[in-house]
């Protein structure tokens, strides 16, 4: 173990995984349970419930993945297990 933090790498990775999985479940399922209520809110002509399924959740997925790539890389570097550039 060259880096004392190396042992914390996997627990931190697992934690990040659960956070991502929770966000994924939220945008894939949870938010759409309320589609009928959300449809009462209309923004630029889009009923919000429809908008979330057509664009909102998709945008969230894309942003999440770029953030994940950054966050996991930070954990890897911190714990000294990142690849050499």
């Amino acid at each position: 173990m060259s880096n004392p933090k190396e042992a914390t790498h996997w627990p931190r990775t697992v934690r990040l995984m659960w956070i991502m999985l929770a966000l994924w479940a939220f945008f894939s399922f949870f938010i759409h349970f309320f589609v009928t209520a959300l449809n009462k809110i209309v923004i630029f002509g889009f009923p919000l419930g429809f908008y979330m399924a057509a664009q909102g959740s998709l945008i969230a997925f894309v942003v999440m993945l770029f953030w994940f790539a950054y966050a996991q890389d930070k954990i890897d570097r911190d714990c000294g297990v990142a690849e050499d550039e």
Partner: protein
Amino acid sequence: MATQTQGTSDFTANLGKIYAFYTGGFLGFVVVLAILEQVGVPNNVIGYLFVALTIGVYAFIGIMSRTMQVSEYYVAGRRVPAFYNGMATGADWMSAASFIGMAGTLYLLGYDGLGFVLGWTGGYVLVAILVGPYLRKFGCYTVPDFFAFRYSGNFARFLAIIVLLSCSFTYVVAQIVGTGLIGARLLNMDFTVAVYVGLAGILVCSMLGGMRAVTWTQVAQYIVLIIAYMIPVVILSAQKFGLPLPQFTYGEVLQAITAREQEMVQQGLAAAGQIKSHIQPFTTYDPLNFFGLILCLMIGTASLPHVLMRYFTTPSVREARLSVAWSLLFIFMLYFTAPAYAAFAKLEVYQEVIGRSITELPQWIYSYGKVGLINVCGVQAADPAAVLAACQKIAGHAGILRFGDFAIQADAIVISTPEIAGLPYVVSGLVAAGGLAAALSTADGLLLAIANALSHDVYYKMIDKNAPTARRLLIARTLLIIVALLAAYTASFRPADIVAMVAWAFSLAAAGIFPALVMGIWWKRTSTAGALLGMIVGFGLCLYYLVGTRYFAGSFYEMWSFLSSATPAQAAKYAELKAAWLAAPDNAAAWKAYDTLAQSIANWWGVKNISAALFSLPLGFLIIWAVSLMTPGPTAEMRSFIDEIRKPRGKALFQEKTT
């Protein structure tokens, strides 16, 4: 060899320039064709030029990328930068069905169709966090490689190959059918000829260069398909709203659609309840099936071998993660545009077609009626006379087109948008080239996944472990051609069922691969016995549900009637229709009535067969967990291997002789 490596790194360094030049060249080519059209070159010449030039470019890239190295052939030398791998994955992923059919599905289903949009994007989140980067670190050539390594041996490899073949082959046949349909509908080619043109287009991309050639042609194909998808709807949006951003302007269109839905009922053009509201949820699927579909499509995405293998090609684990994010961004571009297509087309139909006099229908109806995509008054809308005659036969028809008189197929929406917008033919040619790019790129990826499983896993790993490189590559190419010919031959019969079965691929992949794959990485205790049993039972159950509810609906219903969602009225009707069919076993109509009803009630708790993995996934996880606890866990050596897979740093575990 040194010069070749030099050449490759020059290529990688100049990727930006090369593809920018390519994109500019493609746009220039579109402009030249537009000018040719204006000076009177006939439409079919324009269409053929589009197809010939784009396939020519793919062939050129394919031939330039030929290789005699195993690692180049199987994983493109692991040198594909995240950004370009993202584009290649986008093309790999978006099939003929996404390009041509997605918007139409949204047109027909409204909100419920968005289940597909969500399901086919959200799966990438699972790829990135649970699977992709770990397989990249492991360093395998194919997905079955991982199963063989983690679950000690060739039986696990064999199971993974079975799952891979069963979900990929129908899928690749559907892509080739797609090329045939595009050729037939947009370019007026003969269907069978178009199928074999497609086959040639697929082979030139993949045969000489394997993964390396497929990667760089897929990038080129992504550029063509996304330009082709955007241009018609962007122009339409600019015409209607003065703003070329259809993804934002269609909010107003949604409002207009909703208003028109009510207006049509008030004007007596549709009966109350006949129109499915575009924005109201759960008009086609109940919530259980809607969310079940999303889950199965997402997990299926994260299990399909032709998607996973794209992440084997990046230079590092870090790039693999970033590459998933780029992939999703490029896929998102198309999927967030599809609902705009659907909305624009729907408003056009509701305002300009429904409520018109039968004799004054817009011209585009006949253009697509002729090829069987639009029916009016129950007949193919081939020409005004046929439509008029059919409508006059309907008792009490006032000569005004009612909602129920008009039927359009999903495939017509994207194809007809250029003509609805009154754009010149060159845009239709562009759409044909885009659809072709989508079909060819997906077919390439799938074909390579199948052929690699056969050549690498079956031949090299299971039959002849000492095969020299030259022979391995020869076998790989031969198998590629054989599989491609087999797929094209199957496609030439236009098997309708095959296209429907593509949706099954997601459930099959999810049930067979996902639990064992994820638990193998995330739970060290997962034992070989547990994983194998979980795969067999999960996949078997899924297959049983799919085949049983589709092809043996009657017996499936009778065996499981206590779990079926059938109402007492349906159950009584079932008995009645069955008696009618048994009384006249040769009567096709009696069988159809019986089988159609049986298919609608052959289910467990009302779950449709497109979401079959809803049962097999939890069962697969449960079996792997329970059996693993009851059987000896992996060796200490395997545990430390798993530790290595989890850390990006360090050498790939799976070392191969590469030259």
